[in-house]
């Protein structure tokens, strides 16, 4: 079988923070259209891995390739061009609180906008239809002119997703997008992410604490444990034993 070129490729990647090794010798490939779940206990290195993928962190060892480019070899301009194709939804939202929703959504397009256009839009919002369309896709179109910090946590999460929609990237990375949501909202957000990926054939990489969602919404699960890949398999191959192994406390080893 002839596989397409991978979207991401990690070659023996390690990430060191001082003495501490957050990721050790990770090698993996992610292909277009895959929906990958990253699971693992707190501190396993999920967020770190996602940061390596979107180019905000440079690996201390090994190579990270995205869309056929070695991220550590790129000039900052080239890197930005790659990054425009990668949309990230963060664990702690990372929105600019005191801007109105419309601007936070429009921020998804900043990679393409000129300075003048961006400046004008802060005064008289531009491309509002695009933003409102994205917001109605996540179900909060009526909040478009609200100040972002006045929204609830779940609504802010949707703003973050709407921003990625507007950015229209090839890949969506999501770092625990449902960590602060109730079960009902969690399901909605996960459905939204899955549909987004399926309908437009985007690649989705999402870190999760909830293994059930990983099974139901993704077609590949990568288990991280203390910075190493413990398993990397399709949902039906991930047995309860493997999961138990993943979350086993360190002292019981």
């Amino acid at each position, binding site marked *: 079988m002839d596989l397409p070129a991978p979207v991401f490729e990690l070659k023996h990647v390690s990430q060191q923070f001082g003495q501490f090794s957050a990721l050790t010798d990770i090698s993996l490939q992610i292909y277009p259209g895959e929906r990958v779940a990253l699971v693992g206990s707190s501190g396993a290195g999920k967020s770190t891995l996602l940061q390596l993928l979107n180019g905000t962190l440079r690996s201390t060892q090994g190579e990270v390739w995205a869309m056929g480019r070695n991220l550590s070899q790129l000039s900052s301009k080239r890197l930005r061009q790659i990054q425009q194709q990668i949309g990230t939804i963060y664990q702690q939202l990372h929105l*600019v609180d005191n801007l109105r929703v419309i601007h936070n959504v429009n921020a998804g397009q*900043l*990679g393409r906008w000129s300075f003048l256009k961006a400046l004008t839009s802060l005064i008289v919002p531009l491309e509002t239809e695009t933003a409102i369309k994205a917001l109605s896709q996540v179900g909060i179109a009526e909040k478009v002119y609200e100040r972002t910090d006045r929204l609830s946590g779940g609504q802010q999460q949707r703003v973050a997703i709407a921003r990625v929609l507007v950015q229209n990237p090839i890949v969506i990375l999501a770092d625990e997008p449902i960590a602060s949501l109730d079960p009902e909202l969690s399901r909605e957000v996960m459905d939204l992410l899955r549909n987004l990926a399926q309908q437009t054939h985007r690649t989705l990489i999402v870190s999760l604490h909830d293994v059930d969602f990983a099974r139901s919404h993704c077609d590949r699960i990568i288990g991280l444990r203390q910075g190493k890949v413990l398993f990397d398999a399709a949902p039906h191959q991930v047995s309860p034993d493997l999961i138990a192994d993943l979350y086993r406390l360190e002292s019981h080893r």
Partner: protein
Amino acid sequence: MTVTPSLKWGLIGLAAIVLSLAQAGLFQQDLFNLNGAPLLWKFIVASVHPDFSPELLQTTFNATLTTLAYAVCGTFFSLILGIIGGVLTSEVWWLSFGQPSRFWLLIRGFLAAPRAIHELIWGLFFVNIWGLDPLTAIVAITIPFGAITAKVFSEILDETPRQPLLILLNSGFSPLTAFFYSLLPQAFLNLLSYTFYRFECSIRSAAVLGIIGAGGLGYEIFLSLQSLRYEQLWTFFYALFILNGLVDLSSAWLRRQLGCSSRLDLNLQQTKKKQAPKDIVRRRYFLLLPVSLALLALCFWVINPDFSKLWALRTQQLLGQFVRSALPPDFSEVPRLIPQAIETVSMSVLAIAFSAFGGLLLAFPAANNFFLPGGLLNSNPGKSANLLPQIMLLLSRAILLMCRAIPAPIWALVVLFVMFPGILPGAIALGLHNLGILGRLMAEVIENQDQRPLEALKAQGTPNSLIFLYGVLPLTMPRFVAYSLYRWEVCMRETVIVGLVGAGGLGRSLTEQLSSFDYRSLIVTLGGFLMLTFLVDWVSATARRSLR
């Protein structure tokens, strides 16, 4: 589109600035006096060859020590006043005694008057009573600073979470015990942090007080400026820079050790603070006390104030005489006061506009987390050969230090080399001095800013200029504006001190009436000035609240 509070206040601010500019005569009269340019040039050239002769260095050293001693003693007494006043004027203190009365509001109101009058006016007043005794300088700092500290302390106490206190009270502890075991420890770091900030302010005030003859660096600077000895002047300037720089640095370092990152918290939405590990914090407290006590003892020894004058019979006589000669107030000057009041407000508006703008420009290069290697807006990470950001950092910090270290009246005298007297030179002088303070506060805001929203923008490939526009600016602006509004209140009080050197406004009348012993008019002018300060405070507080 609806009119948001920020748009509304922005327009009001803009209108105020334009009106003030018109008031300052920008559009009509001659402002610049180019005859003074050679003198200004001589003054600037002298900065590269200051006078380092041994005798002058000795004088400089003594003067520096005097200024430091005034500041230390002044801070000490205002801290004592501040603690007592702060506790007594806090709502929570009376609450823990089960007093439903509004007594605290009354005392709070009573403290507003001493706060509104600038140290320099207090100084001029006490010079009339005690002459040029060090006591004059200390008391002149203590009265307004004590009142300000009391106000801020009471606010800190009232804003500290009360739950633990209530739990202790409800479980039958005596109110005093409950207060000391719950509220004070919680509020302690904030109180301490503010004390450091007050000390930085005291240093600057001590220098200003020199100008009325109280000795120290301000006095020496004033003398050499008047006698055109610019080489000596710069020696004193450099001493002042070093003193201010050292105090600011050590205060910042101490606050960082104690884990309180911001020197004065204006109670906007609380940003997530980085907490220092608790055990480190505790170890340092013990060092702090003996060191400050030793410093205090040294300072008292150096200036040796004559405290007996405080309760001497002569003091009482002179005070009584003052009261008698000030009554009844003389309202005949009121028609002349009104245009002066308008001038004063215009001067304060222009000063704060100038310093907010300048501070904003300098704050970004002065912050250590943006353009330096590894900083968010550094465009070529990895390649650290570029030294430009470091140079900009040092340069902008040096400018900020120079601006705030030189007292406003001295700036005024320098500006008057090339400008005709009026409110514009006064505003520029005040603006320059406050620019140094605001720029530093703003740089701190930038350094403490939550970086994550900016990283998110960066991660999607946003260019630096747009990260700035969509991230940095909106995130930091509310704090900038709040600090500027707060500083506007201070500028308003400080208009008095540039009035002293002829910059116009109510300050000029105040100082004239003080030195000609015209106390009956003085009382009226002072009353007008107080009303004006309260008005400005009210506008500033209203704006800050609606912009929150």
